[in-house]
């Protein structure tokens, strides 16, 4: 019973904390641009507002239009339960859970793309096509990073495999995973979350025809994905495990916050890349992770 309660409690913490991050990100961007910017809690207000609204349904849309975002949200919540939180470990942990994490993320992406196609609008189809074609490369990088961590630690359980490499390996992995984070969460330089020009947006294009609660679920799912990747990146690069419990939690929270601010800075200082340069950047991320894998391999052999 207590184990069940603990899972519920952890899930509640994940769900409640996730919408904070886009707020911090936007505040950073506003600060760099010299604006006051929206309040940090803006996404909470937006979600509450969207939740009260009614849904506008296209006559073309099948039940998948509503089911897609819902299934994607559930998959992301389940993925969040697998990710260990520093000293507290993961809510659920078993051998090979990292594979389930990768597949849950892929399932969430599939359902979002599916719901986008259900709208029957060419713009949404274009957004879905772009999202999926970027995912081919960024998933390759993510899986290579996971492989390098697993070779490093000789384990396929998320709880024990997040023992970071030291030196050059950590730097390579950090750079590769940061690029994957930016690509997976549709941030600059891969996609601009602020743009609403149909020809250039990717993630926003997929959510164009969604309204009311389904849109709220998509937005909340995206913020959860951002938090998930931030926690993964911090734990894959920093040796949080060796620290005492309280310091470790503080270090994890601090790293997540500073990487969020870093993403905000990247977003303020960089322009979006043109579409034809994105594969090059994602290939670079893949190669960074690949060399981290090689280093882990050679280091392990000695």
């Amino acid at each position, binding site marked *: 019973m207590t184990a069940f309660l603990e899972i519920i409690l952890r899930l509640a913490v994940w769900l409640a904390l996730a919408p904070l991050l886009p707020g911090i990100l936007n505040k950073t961007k506003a600060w760099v641009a010299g604006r006051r910017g929206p309040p940090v809690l803006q996404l909470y207000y937006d979600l509450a507002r969207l939740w009260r609204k009614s849904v506008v349904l296209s006559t073309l849309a099948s039940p998948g239009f509503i089911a897609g975002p819902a299934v994607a949200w559930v998959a992301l919540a389940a993925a969040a339960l697998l990710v260990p939180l520093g000293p507290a470990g993961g809510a659920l942990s078993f051998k090979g859970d990292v594979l389930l994490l990768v597949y849950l993320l892929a399932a969430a992406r599939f359902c979002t793309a599916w719901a986008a196609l259900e709208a029957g609008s060419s713009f949404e189809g274009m957004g879905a096509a772009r999202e999926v074609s970027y995912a081919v490369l960024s998933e390759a990088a993510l899986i290579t990073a996971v492989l390098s961590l697993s070779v490093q630690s000789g384990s396929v359980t998320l709880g024990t495999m997040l023992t970071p490499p030291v030196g050059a390996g950590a730097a390579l992995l950090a750079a590769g995973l940061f690029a994957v984070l930016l690509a997976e969460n549709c941030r600059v330089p891969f996609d601009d979350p602020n743009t609403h020009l149909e020809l250039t947006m990717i993630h926003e294009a997929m959510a164009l025809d969604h309204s009311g609660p389904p849109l709220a679920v998509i937005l909340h799912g995206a913020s959860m994905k951002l938090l998930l990747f931030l926690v993964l990146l911090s734990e894959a690069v920093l040796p949080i495990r060796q620290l005492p419990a309280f310091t470790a939690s503080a270090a994890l929270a601090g790293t997540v916050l500073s990487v969020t601010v870093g993403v905000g800075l990247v977003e303020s200082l960089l322009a979006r890349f043109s579409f034809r340069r994105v594969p090059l950047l994602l*290939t670079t991320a893949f*190669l960074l992770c690949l060399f981290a894998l090689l280093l882990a391999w050679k280091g392990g052999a000695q």
Partner: protein
Amino acid sequence: MSSSVNLLIGLAMGLNLLALGSSRMPSVIRIVAAQGVALGLIPFFMEDRFGWLVALVAAGTVAVKGLVIPNLLHRAMRTAKIDREIEPSIGFVPSMLLGAGGTMAAVDGAQLLPLLSEHAGTLLVPGALASIFTGFILLIGRVTAISQVCGYLILDNGIYLIGLLLIHSTPLLVESGILLDLTVAVFVIGIIMDRIQRAFDSLDTRKLTVLRE
């Protein structure tokens, strides 16, 4: 000592891949210059005791590869009014993947070579092979003369790394002679590029296939 040498060579290998992936001419020139500086610093870390001759060659290498040659290339670009965009005949992503594959093959293949025990632990030979391979990819996969010059310079950096294996037995005269040759070659190529640009209105080497009196 060996770890800082390995770090510098690792940096040079990363710069190889960056050079394959960048699409602007000035940034390729900067990358080649940075690689030259990184490799020029290596002799300082290889020696246990400080030697004047080695220090002189290293300082000369840093100065020529980091300042003189990039300046010559930038000037050639300005006078010939060369386009800053690079046109690849092997695309950026394929050439980067090729370069990464070549780097890995170099790291793996160097273990099969019968090296001296003092060189077996360093990345000198893999770095040299990877740079030579990168230089070849740039020479084959880019169509304008100036990017091929950059490929030639990376190729030369690889040969320089092999030369470092013999740092104790190569006379200073040979090292400085190679450096001088390189400078003169880039200088002459800069002039030739200007001529090609005037005669053909482009630096595309695919147009330079017919000999005429």
